[in-house]
């Protein structure tokens, strides 16, 4: 895993690239978020104030200041998806995970978020899990994707 120092060095310590650095640090963090320690380190390494880092970080919804799970599930909330019964998909996922949107499962495996259009409205309702988009979902197919991911995780653990 890249240390924060290394990431900053890769970007040449350029403050103009602060957002890119924040995203890279978040991607490298095991809990998928920007911790207070990370903010402190970015600030001191780049010689800028902590509030400058927070100011940029807190503006963007893809930067999380709270720990997240290893898989981030993003459910699209916009009109084309909402019309395609997004609510049913969301409740079925919430029920499966035992959490509501905005929360992380206690085992830190999943975080559920509502986001804006994923550019997949031609296959709404759509969700994105990590880097993959799933479309034309039914409550059942959404749940089975989650179960598959959980199973993969369990297999990795026991392997």
């Amino acid at each position, binding site marked *: 895993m890249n240390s924060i120092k290394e990431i900053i060095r890769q970007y040449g310590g*350029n*403050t*103009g*690239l*602060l*957002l*890119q650095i*924040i*995203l890279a640090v978040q991607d490298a963090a095991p809990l998928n978020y920007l911790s207070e320690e990370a903010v402190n380190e970015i600030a001191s390494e780049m010689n800028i104030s902590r509030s400058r880092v927070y*100011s*940029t970080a807190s*503006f*963007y*919804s*893809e*930067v999380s200041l709270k720990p997240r799970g290893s898989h981030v599930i*993003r459910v699209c*909330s*916009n*009109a*084309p998806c*909402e*019309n395609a019964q997004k609510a049913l998909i969301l409740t079925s996922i919430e029920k499966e995970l035992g959490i509501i949107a905005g929360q992380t499962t206690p085992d830190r495996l999943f975080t559920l978020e509502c*986001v*804006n*259009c*994923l*550019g*997949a*409205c*031609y*296959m*709404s309702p759509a969700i*994105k899990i990590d*880097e993959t988009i799933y479309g034309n979902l039914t409550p059942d197919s959404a749940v089975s994707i989650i179960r598959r991911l959980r199973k993969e995780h369990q297999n990795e653990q026991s392997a």
Partner: protein
Amino acid sequence: MSRVLNHELIFNICPDRYVDLPTYCCHGGYTALKKVLEQAPETAIKEIEEAGLRGRGGAAFPTANKIKMVRSNPSDLRYIICNADEGEPGTFKDRFIMTHIPFQLLEGITIAAFLAGAGHGYIYIRHEYPEAQRIMRESIIEAQKSGLLGSNIMGSSYNFTLELFSGAGSYLCGEETALISSIEGKKGRPRLKPPYPTEAGLWNKPTLINNVETLSNIPKIIQNGAKWYRSLGTQDSPGTKLISLSGDVNRRGLYEVPFGISFNQIINKYGEGTKPGRAIKAVNIGGASGVLIPPDLLDTPLEYLACAKTGITIGSGAVFVLDDTRSILANVHNRLRFFLHESCGKCTPCREGLRQTNIIMDRLLSRKAVKTDIDTLTRYTRAIQDASFCGLGQAAGNSLHSSLMYYAEEYLAACQDNQLSHNKEVTA
């Protein structure tokens, strides 16, 4: 996904076909760049001007003028930014261009950069598009290796470097000055215009910002000429437009259509109409910031002038169909919630106004509103529209305004006092 319906195409996007560099070159790719590098820049700018290309991101500003403005500004440095922050709900055209024909976009960016006199550029791609980011990143490297980016492009004396910049989940960063702030490492909040980016953009240098679709048009214009390009659309709106068709149609998808065809044709020919037994209730054009129009306006041709006359904003080219089972109020509410969430909070009318309109919409949808609430709603949205600092607030009320115009009875029916008087009449 584009289906050929007897017209020539500029994009030729197939859902399952990725066009790699050799294939792109086989079909005339990079001949336009070669041509441009060998001529005086003015010749190509004139071709784009005669073609009548306008910005496809939503604002429809003449592309050649923008290039000229950047070019004519004396400066040691000039930049180009490709705006790939496609965040307009219901729109997915830029994503398809990037993941399917990335080199057409890269060629377009390089030509535009050369014409504007820019030596360095960025593609700002939203964070929600990791696949597009990956493909564009790899394509940039491949173009560099093949001498199509970097120093002495295609053996000329032109040097141009291009970098990818990732957004981080902010719709507002699609606004050009907000996007610039974001690249500069700050919050993505808009700046006051003027000065326009063409004068003082990124790091205060003249900057050309264009949408993905706009830039991807350029190689074809240079390759085939303005006359050919004009033969595709109409006098007022030459060329073709990518339409993201979604909602209650049989065949949702991305379609490249010639300007001048009607929205009815888009929905029926390309989208194969609505589900059996269902009629169209309303169509949202231009995404969340667009309008909601009733079926009798669907004969309007897709054309900037004709649409402006009918109050339709083509915007990014999203066409979202609602059939007669849908609630207008719920749809408008969805859009207002979206804008409240994306408002950057810099100015009061947008920040507070949207909060209040959402409260009233909540009341309406839970049948707790009274008739005077509708007047308040109208007043608030007018204020948001007139007094907001940037385009987000100015356009946030478009779907509300249009729906109040065409579907007022739905709002009235949702009011408590309307129900009461109605009941009284019935019992009397």
